[in-house]
């Protein structure tokens, strides 16, 4: 869309006018595209140094989320993976699911509150980006309780660290091992398989390729990466034994063979009895059998693979620059990834320096997640964690931690700008406007939230609104608030 310059609103521009205009636009890009939407006063704090504002945020330790209502993944899964009690499986599962749902609500509330309140919104957005890159989805009921823990335990600690460490943490996390079924994957030549074959089990559990396929396709090399079905199978064999402690839904015959040492229920557990023995070749490189370390060695090489740098750079550029980012921008981010050995702050620095990102304001259509968070930030609405508040994400089409597939939510305008989705957004904004509009002044807020991207058309519509409530609705419905 075209931008109509707004500042200064009166004729008689001084010599610094163009420069001031550019600064106002750059501040809005920093707060709204790289961040999660400006809070009142944020654009002033950004001032004339948007890149510096972003760089400051990626220094120091990452912001973690802790709370008494946020148990560890092992705690959450301990009931389901602990020793079986007398209750029938269906009842046991129902009880576990009730607890999972309670934890899920607490996780979503904590994540939302953090996104709304944070002074480091760039880091929070990056956290959401990586969670989506390594997606699990709570429509698989087994992960309802631990989807938030994956973000807290495997993503947040590494969001300002190295890609390889995040990759290792994610692939060992119980949420991922559950979601992509690896905890039950049995090597065809493993001790357990041999044991079962000797007992002539009709359908012995076997190799599960799910995790291996998604690691290659979605987590590292990308779908166009240089791997084939053989590599998927070999990597699946490499990863056999990467499992979860306790009993879980292990078939009884498997448990018989595993013996007494089941490990901490609900925590990562390498099980040699499930592991496919022998050296394996992945992407043309031979990995001697070293048990658990074999998988780690392959993952380290995948993290350092040029295709991974390319794939991650492309996704970051698509998220922060445009749906179809310029090749040159992708190439610079890719180079930063390669030259820093996947040091993420170095990669982010290249992202901040991408001239393409600052050239075109409003290049990205907000996701529902962006839209709800930026509304709460912009209007300074206190978060309560109540079900109705959290329901907004689902109402607008992006239930938290529920992308529906390991591919995560799409990052293209066309996936979010559907007619019904747009109308739902406007209706939600109107309901919110009706509730709090009388206590906000939209005309004052508009320049504070949109800075140099605020159009004269929008400001005029807000000023001419019939009521304060309607004025707020128009601000939230404005094209420049729908985008970032």
């Amino acid at each position, binding site marked *: 869309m075209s931008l109509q310059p707004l500042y200064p609103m009166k004729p008689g521009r001084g010599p610094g006018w163009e420069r001031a205009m550019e600064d106002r636009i750059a501040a809005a890009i920093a707060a709204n595209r790289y961040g999660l939407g400006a809070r009142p006063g944020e654009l002033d704090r950004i001032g004339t140094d948007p890149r510096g504002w972003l760089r400051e945020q990626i220094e120091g330790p990452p912001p973690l989320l802790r709370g008494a209502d946020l148990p560890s993944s092992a705690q959450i899964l301990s009931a389901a993976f602990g020793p079986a009690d007398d209750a029938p*499986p269906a009842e046991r599962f129902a009880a576990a699911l009730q607890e999972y749902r309670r934890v899920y609500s607490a996780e979503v509330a904590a994540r939302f509150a953090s996104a709304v309140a944070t002074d480091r919104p760039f880091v929070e957005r990056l956290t959401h980006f990586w969670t989506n890159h390594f997606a699990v989805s709570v429509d698989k009921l087994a992960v309802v309780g631990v989807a938030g823990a994956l973000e807290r335990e495997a993503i947040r600690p590494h969001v300002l660290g190295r890609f390889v460490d995040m990759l290792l943490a994610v692939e060992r996390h119980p949420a991922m091992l559950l979601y992509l079924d690896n905890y039950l994957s049995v090597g065809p030549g493993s001790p357990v398989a041999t044991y079962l074959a000797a007992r002539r089990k009709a359908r012995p559990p076997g190799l599960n390729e799910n995790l291996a396929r998604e690691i290659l396709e979605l987590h590292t090399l990308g779908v166009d990466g240089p791997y084939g079905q053989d590599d998927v199978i070999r990597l699946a064999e490499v990863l056999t034994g990467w499992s979860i402690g306790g009993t879980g839904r292990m078939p009884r015959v498997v448990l018989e063979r595993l013996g007494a040492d089941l490990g901490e229920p609900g925590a990562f557990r390498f099980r040699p009895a499930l592991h496919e023995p022998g050296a394996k070749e992945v992407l043309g490189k031979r990995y001697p059998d070293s048990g658990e370390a074999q998988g780690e060695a392959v993952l380290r090489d995948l993290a350092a693979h040029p295709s991974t740098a390319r794939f991650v750079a492309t996704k970051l550029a698509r998220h922060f620059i445009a749906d179809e980012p310029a090749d040159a921008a992708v190439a610079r981010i890719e180079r930063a990834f390669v030259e820093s050995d996947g040091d993420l702050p170095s990669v982010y620095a290249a992202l901040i320096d991408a001239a393409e990102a600052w050239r075109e304001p409003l290049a990205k259509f907000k996701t529902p997640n962006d839209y709800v968070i930026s509304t709460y930030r912009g209007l300074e609405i206190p978060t309560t964690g109540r079900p109705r508040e959290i329901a907004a994400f689902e109402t607008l089409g992006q239930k938290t931690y529920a992308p529906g597939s390991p591919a995560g939510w799409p990052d293209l305008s066309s996936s979010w700008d559907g007619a019904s*989705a747009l*109308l739902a957004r406007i209706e939600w904004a109107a309901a919110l406007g*009706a509730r709090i509009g009388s206590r906000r002044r939209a005309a004052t807020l508009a320049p504070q939230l949109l800075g140099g991207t605020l159009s004269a058309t929008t400001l005029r519509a807000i000023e001419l*609104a*019939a009521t304060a409530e309607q004025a707020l609705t128009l601000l939230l419905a*404005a094209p420049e608030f729908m985008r970032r």
Partner: protein
Amino acid sequence: MAKLSRRDVLRSAALTGGAVLCSRVAFAAAGDTDARFVLALLRGGLDGLSAVPPYADPDYARLRRQIAIAAPGRDGGALDLDGRFGLHPSLAFLHEAYADGELAVLHAVATPYRERSHFDAQDVLESGFPAPHADRTGWLNRALAALPRSAQLANAQRRGVALGQNVPLVLRGPAEVVSWSPSRLPPLDSDTVARISDLYAGDELLSRRLADALALKSQVPASMDGGGAPGRRAELLETVTAAARFLRDDDGPSVAVFDTTGWDTHANEGGARGPLAARLEALDTALRELKRGLGPAWERTVVLVATEFGRTAEANGSRGTDHGTAGAAFLLGGAVAGGRVIADWPGLAPSALYEGRDLAPTLDLRSVLKGVLGEHLGVPERALETDVFPESRAAPLLHGLVRT
């Protein structure tokens, strides 16, 4: 009770439906703009052996134990179709439609997917590719895109509508489609709508989207909007009511997609009564409502009810069933050449089960889809064999599924 064998049913299909199945080669007029198609996706894996019990199969009752559906005439018994297969007793409307020749029941049908993951199975069901995650577009959208240009956007509206906020994979792709879902939010007042429309005047994308949304909204009664979250059953009724309103409009879309969840019956599935029975009853009621809502357009409509996979032949230890392979599907509508069961029945004997546990697939769902898309919507055969269903030579188009 007639004993059911594979050859019997094969012969039965050849005799009763054979004339239709084999003789008609001509496709519908390319890009028939009057034809209507509704796709209902049952996510989670419908238990085809409960929805369409093969009560005459000698192994059925043994495998299903407490959740078996009894033979017709018994308490809670199946609604008979052809002396071999019945419908679940909750499917009263479908049974009427069968008698009226408006329902064809497909059994032992499956997509080419042979593993047991919901995600991958749904991906294959919707993408139309033989393997999961092969593409980011769906067969129904590619079919719309393959229609002659004159038919594609002959109308002001899009040719396809997804009943839901997000367009599902099956309807994603190059052809422009629109989405609609009942709003859980209070409607906008007309003054605010007018002001936002003005505000979007300089924004081509948003003004087009808003106009689309408002146009669709004007076709559904206001009473459908603004309520709180309804139960699943009411939601399904809302959805089909809206689908009917869109499709019966001459200038409306010709294709609608909706989905329902909750078919993943691992535990306490129930038999003639119980959770699955309740879901089937809700589906049956919704389909009855769809017919009522479509009015005269019903005669030009084909509804396909399909799921990602069937479930295990044997009931499990939790009185449910686990992920399986082949199952049942329904072709319903005034344009369907119905009143028959189309099944090359493999039987439920231990040796006949796929991998010793599932109903074996003997009909590729893509054959059915090709038949409907080609002979009902008029999608060119060449496109069906290439863009719409790549690598699908194993699944030749099934002729004669729709009335000439």
